[in-house]
């Protein structure tokens, strides 16, 4: 009787310890993987999901507007490593899911449709502003994620007259110019403006920041942005293409190279 009781107690003790050990092991693993993912953010229809599909499956599936976040692992063959890519929906109502992932981000890629940015400049800039704000208000303990801006769908950008410029560099130029202009507008409208207080947060400063620049008169400029370097890449994918296409010939070459160098 006693012996069986002892056995029972000992057994449950061992089980408990094992359980704790497993728990500790798993939580440790989680904290280790901190700051390891690449977030794809940006306005709806930018091409985030298409990029994810190309990176993960080596084929570009057709897509529609995303209802939820996708997180997949992408192998970086050159480094024999892998990277988690997180594709966050761009719809204004659900784009705040980025807050859940920004703590784990190694890099943030803001995907802009270069073929429509001249029409949607203000909306795109507003979205980018929320990202810039989130980046600059991260706790100092966290290493700042790198910021990439992808001038995507560069295949749709017509190279007009100048035959010398590639469509990628044209797309980059266009996206950069328009975003700088729109963000500067936002900065001016904020500076010297009196914002309406948020309800129940008397006296608190609630304005979005993240637009400070070190350049002359504080004019917004990506080169002098206080949050660090901003990398611009021109990308594109071919929707519906299968594996026939060689990996290093596709429009994501610059992104893949960047990943190899920075992961």
């Amino acid at each position, binding site marked *: 009787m006693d012996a069986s009781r002892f056995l029972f107690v000992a057994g449950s003790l061992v089980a408990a310890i094992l359980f704790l050990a497993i728990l500790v092991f798993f939580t440790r693993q989680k904290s280790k993987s901190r700051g390891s993912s690449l977030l794809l953010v940006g306005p709806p229809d930018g091409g985030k999901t298409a990029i994810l599909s190309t990176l*993960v499956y080596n084929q570009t599936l*057709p897509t529609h507007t*995303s209802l939820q976040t996708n*997180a*997949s692992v992408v192998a970086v063959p050159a480094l024999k490593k892998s990277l988690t890519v997180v*594709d966050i929906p761009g*719809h204004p109502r659900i784009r705040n899911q980025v807050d859940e992932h920004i703590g784990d981000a190694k890099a943030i890629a803001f995907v802009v449709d270069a073929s429509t940015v001249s029409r949607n400049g*203000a909306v795109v800039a*507003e979205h980018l502003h929320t990202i810039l704000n989130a980046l600059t208000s991260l706790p100092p303990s966290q290493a700042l994620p790198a910021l990439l801006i992808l001038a995507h769908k560069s295949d749709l950008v017509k190279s007009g007259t100048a035959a010398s410029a590639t469509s990628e560099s044209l797309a980059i130029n266009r996206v950069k110019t328009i975003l700088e202009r729109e963000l500067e507008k936002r900065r001016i409208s904020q500076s010297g403006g009196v914002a309406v207080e*948020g309800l129940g947060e008397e006296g608190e400063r609630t304005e979005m920041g993240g637009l400070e620049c070190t350049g002359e008169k504080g004019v917004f400029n990506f080169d002098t942005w206080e949050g660090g370097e901003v990398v611009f890449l021109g990308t594109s994918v071919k929707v519906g293409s299968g594996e026939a296409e060689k990996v290093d010939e596709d429009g994501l070459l610059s992104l893949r190279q960047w990943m190899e160098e920075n992961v």
Partner: protein
Amino acid sequence: MLDHCSISHKGGLVLWSRSFTPDAAALALSSASPVNSLIREALIEGRTTEEKYEKDGYAVKWTFVNDLELIFVVAYQRILQLTYVDDLLAALKALFVKMFQPFLATFVASLHALNSGKAAVVEAASAFNFADAFDGWDRVFDKLLKNLEEKAAAERKNRLRPAVRPPIEDASPPSEEAETLPTQSPDTPQDEQQISRNVQALKNRLRGRGGKMGRRGSARSDAGSGRESVPNSDSESPAPKRKTKAKVQRKWGDEAPTETDMASLDFSVDSVQESGSSQDLQALVDQASMGTRTRDGMYEVKDWEFSKEEDSAIARALGPAEAEAKTGSLGALGSLFSRLTGLQVCEGVGESLVGKKVGGFQTTNAAVRLALSTSLTRILTPKTSTDLLLSIRTKLSSALPSTQQRMPYSITFVGVNGVGKSTNLSKVCFWLIQNGLRVLIAACDTFRSGAVEQLRVHVRNLGMLGVNGAADSKGRVELYERGYGKDAAGIAREAIAYGRDNDFDVVLIDTAGRMQDNEPLMRALAKLVAVNSPDKIIFVGEALVGNEAVDQLTKFDRALRDFSSASGGGKERGIDGMLVTKWDTVDDKVGAALSMTYVTGQPIIFVGCGQTYTDLRQLRVGNVVQAILAD
């Protein structure tokens, strides 16, 4: 008949799609495709409560498989009144999941790398071949669609000539054929003849059982003979039948569906039967489940869902025990739900929970709370910028041809009587002055006595308040008044012209209060809007009246839209945003705010919380959600 059909993952990847016309194919690639509009407007913004969404002449229907995170969408021309779409969706869902379950499971896992093992996933993912993965599906789809279309056509014919019923040949012998068919090799060609033979066999077998099912059979005395009650539901007594059935090995992977599967989905069988779709579907459930039972009879495909009723849907999807847990938790969260005056919100949450497995340490309560919080955040987050100042500055700084004069930014305040339009207009005015803008107030309430004087007092007060160190703000604010009894639309137009000539930045237009049901007055308001096309139309509503404000808002919005579209020329114009007043006078106010955002999809730009000029606030989504969920 259909225009477009697609099967996709909630994350946005389309697994399979088919367009039936070149137009639909072209449209499917654009961001304005019916599927994209459905997801944006119905699923993300939650603007439709029905099971059908309509857009640009398309009707769109959809269904979810929650645990595999799939969406099945069918789009067709709205005028077509297709009756078989629900059946099609249900059958597609059942068959697709059945045929490709293992692949789909790994595929979904590859999109959730954060919670699952990394290494395994990356291996699997890069090896996926989507082109081959759904091999055979096209054929299955074609057959299914053809069957349904034929059945629908036959039904239509029947309705036209109810007396003439096509005779059913009773040719094939009642045999065990149907039972032996599933073991046939999947490569066997499935020609029409064979299918029709299966159908016959199935019919015979079912007819044999027909006598046992008393209720439905006897009720249908008008149907002539019993043989027409073919794929009838015998869901009342499924257990004994299943035990006597020959069991078929469950089939996974890329095998083609067995002929029984096809036969069971052949709705054309009961072309003479005029019964509703639910019976057909039950027959489908029954037949299909036969094929998926293992030898010991333990396995069942759980997530098929054919019931229309929400409650039973949840109950069945969660299984009895879990359903109980859910109702229990709903009891605990009862006070919370009662505060959510927008019941539709709760429905949405319920839907998103169906079929979800509650994770290890998560209680049901926490799961519901999380889903609710996500859902509320989604509803309250404005889809357009609420930054009024930015939009004013953008308009003022936009480049103009030199011949044109700069127009001031105009904002119209509308609402019922006494909600606080004039008071809050002057609060907004104060805030704009603080931001260095010159404001003209147009007194277009030419109806209520004292309205103009009230504004005059406000303007005088505002003129005496200092701005940015200056002793007063004379010249920064002015009143444009033309007395009472005049046409408000005309006064507003003159005011805007005056503002333009005198270099004002913003014109705030105060309108007379009116009840939402008073058609002549609503027409007058619509005219004011049409004549002046203000940059923003702000609906002012009281937090005090709760859901009454929602009714007002809906009717104002509807009336403005109706009149503006009826008057031709310009495009439809509705409410652009809301201002909720008297926030300080009620305790339980978030409900109304939530419902107001929910019904229009437009943001609450400000809330008024007192009677001084500084009592203007902005609603922060996080705070509101917290306020709702805290207790």
